[in-house]
């Protein structure tokens, strides 16, 4: 029997990737789970602690606050990125003038490290001394005061818009690549049948793009939940705790307060939450959108 015909051959091909996945993903997760059930005293694993880390986490109002902040952040940032990204990709797909120049420029925000993005926006919009806030917002009185990030009413919205600024080009490029890869023949057939552009978009483009949209959407959704650097740089979770997202809270619990057991419990719960959400998302996408 040739190797290709062996029933083990596909598993042998998958093995290296599976091994990497186990080492970089499963092992840390299992270790986090182990830590979450133990008392950790300044980084040293102590006695079995049962559910105490979980119950302390559940009793902490900042846990629930951070989850709510992240939800609001995603509800603002994600739809905007998705719609603007798809819209931009459809425009680029129309062979607009200067596309060859625009495409590389679109990479710039996405390629920037989030901490740099935070610093850039800090320099632009820091209350009273930021480049734009000092010279434009304050001078022309666009906002009461000059600070966006220190306002309890605007800070989260402003942070979400920074996220939109950074990640919309990524969505745009991903969707553009998807559009470019779509087969031409269904469109030709639809044109022959007299389909309108709207019909082509809803009946052809969206269904054909569905797998890509689901994957990209899911990735961005998870990524938006994990936002850390820009918020750390711009508001440090404030004003009060109005922009304290779970990753910022987990960072503080782990590296400032050394409550490793609780932060491990937090990580496990977030992981389980995402696992459930992504599984649901996957099944819905598979059944309703025929995406997989």
């Amino acid at each position: 029997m040739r190797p290709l015909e062996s029933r083990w051959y596909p598993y042998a091909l998958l093995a290296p990737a599976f091994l990497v996945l186990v080492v970089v993903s499963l092992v840390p997760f299992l270790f986090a789970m182990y830590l979450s059930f133990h008392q950790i005293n300044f980084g040293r694993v102590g006695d079995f602690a049962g559910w105490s880390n979980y119950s302390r986490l559940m009793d902490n109002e900042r846990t629930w606050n951070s989850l709510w902040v992240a939800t609001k952040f995603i509800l603002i940032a994600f739809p905007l990125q998705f719609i603007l990204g798809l819209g931009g990709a459809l425009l680029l797909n129309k062979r607009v003038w200067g596309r060859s120049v625009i495409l590389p420029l679109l990479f710039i925000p996405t390629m920037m490290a989030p901490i740099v993005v935070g610093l850039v926006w800090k320099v632009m919009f820091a209350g009273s001394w930021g480049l734009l806030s000092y010279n434009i917002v304050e001078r022309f009185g666009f906002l009461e005061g000059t600070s966006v990030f220190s306002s309890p009413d605007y800070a989260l919205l402003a942070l979400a818009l920074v996220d939109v600024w950074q990640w919309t080009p990524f969505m745009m490029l991903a969707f553009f690549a998807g559009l470019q890869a779509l087969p031409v023949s269904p469109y030709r057939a639809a044109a022959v049948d007299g389909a309108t552009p709207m019909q082509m978009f809803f009946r052809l483009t969206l269904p054909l793009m569905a797998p890509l949209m689901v994957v990209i959407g899911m990735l961005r959704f998870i990524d938006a939940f994990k936002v850390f650097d820009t918020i750390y740089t711009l508001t440090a979770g404030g004003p009060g705790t109005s922009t304290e997202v779970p990753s910022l809270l987990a960072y503080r619990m782990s590296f400032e307060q050394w409550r490793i057991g609780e932060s491990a419990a937090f990580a496990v719960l977030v992981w389980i939450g995402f696992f459930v959400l992504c599984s649901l998302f996957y099944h819905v996408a598979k059944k309703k959108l025929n995406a997989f």
Partner: protein
Amino acid sequence: MTMHKAKSKSILAGLIASAAAICYGAPLHAQDWSYAEAAKPYAGTTIRVLDEITPLQETMRKLVPEFTEETGIKVEYELLSHGDVINRGQADLFSGRGNYDAIMLHGLQLGPLLAAKVLQPIDELKKDQALTNPDLGLDDLIEPANESLVNHSGAQYGFLTWNYNQIYWARADLLNHPDEQAAFETRYGYPLAPAETMQQMRDIAEFFTRKSGETLAGETLSNDFYGIVLEGIPGGTTFTTVWEVFMNNWGGGVFDADGKPNLDTPENIAALQFWADLWKFAPPGQAEYSLIDVPTVMGNGIAAQSIAFSDFVLGVDRPGGGAYAGKFVYGGIPVNAENPDARSAGGEPSLMALSSHSENQEATYLFMQWMVDEDTQAKLMEAGGGGVPIRRSSFDLDVMREAGRQSLYKAMAASLQYVKAKPKTPSFFEIDNTMGPLVQQVGIGQLTAAEALKDGQRKVLSICSDCLLAE
């Protein structure tokens, strides 16, 4: 010469020689001691030292090769930012990796690290005459910062190496302007001058808060101008400033004498309310200002006065440091006129501590000692064109007597009289993380001082009821 006379002379000579030996014995021993001699057994050793990156440490880094040249001990002197030096340093100590032999620690870190027993007391090393410079002169170190920082439970955990302190900082050009002085005196009934009391600081803040289009020191403002700027970000040192500069000056504090949380007292409520009232005269972006942003705002000429860390001031108020360099005046932390006996100033004295996991403790101890040595400190001040002293004698150095900086150094000296290290509590960071957002919410008007401190007391009590490490 008779035999008797000769004998008498030789006895006299012997007595003189003995007296000389007794009189000069100790100094001769001190003169004999040198870092080169003490380091001979450790020549060729490499030690790793973690410190924080500010202009002060960057100057120290220039001097470190001199230590290596003198002792043959190679020093990898790594500088990281404030947050990183805390996180990486603690991670190294807690994990027991022993990557660093000595680590710079802020006083606020000592509670958790002492509780985890990862710091090596240096008392035994200090007793070793071969290792310790008899002329080290530790009684010259500035108190109460030193004593309150390095000692715990009868042991010493390193040397005071950095003496971060907060000072009062104001625009001299505005305070000295005749029109402003006349208007201020008419309005408040006393002369305009750098604030010596909290209440004066508040009046000055109110007086100088002006809208775009109004006049300031004879010029029409094209932007809003603010009477004061303070740190307001939820992390950083916002809460500790409220604690040390305001609560303590009102006779309050975070803990009672037994180490129990004591936040919702009338004194603390009054102090927090006073601090929050100052926000009315501060830039609207104050809630996002860290200890680094405050000097930036002052350097940009947007505010009249501040309370800031003096080492950051050094960066702004130097030739070429900005448009307003040379136009500032300084003072100690203003006193609360209603409770002048409760003097307190904010600061963060920091030490170089020996890791209990270090395998090069003697060589590292020599370096730590060298850092605080009077000669090294003098060179540090010289090389940095001044600095933040850890020794009282440093204030007498020529470089510190430079006319242009006198106001700043007098302010530092005035502040340092009252700067103590943070109480050693294992839960420091949890308490700070709890209280930071709460006091900020008072500043931006989301909570009243009483509400925030009542909530804070409840939350801090859930963290610890007996918060200080036992002596």
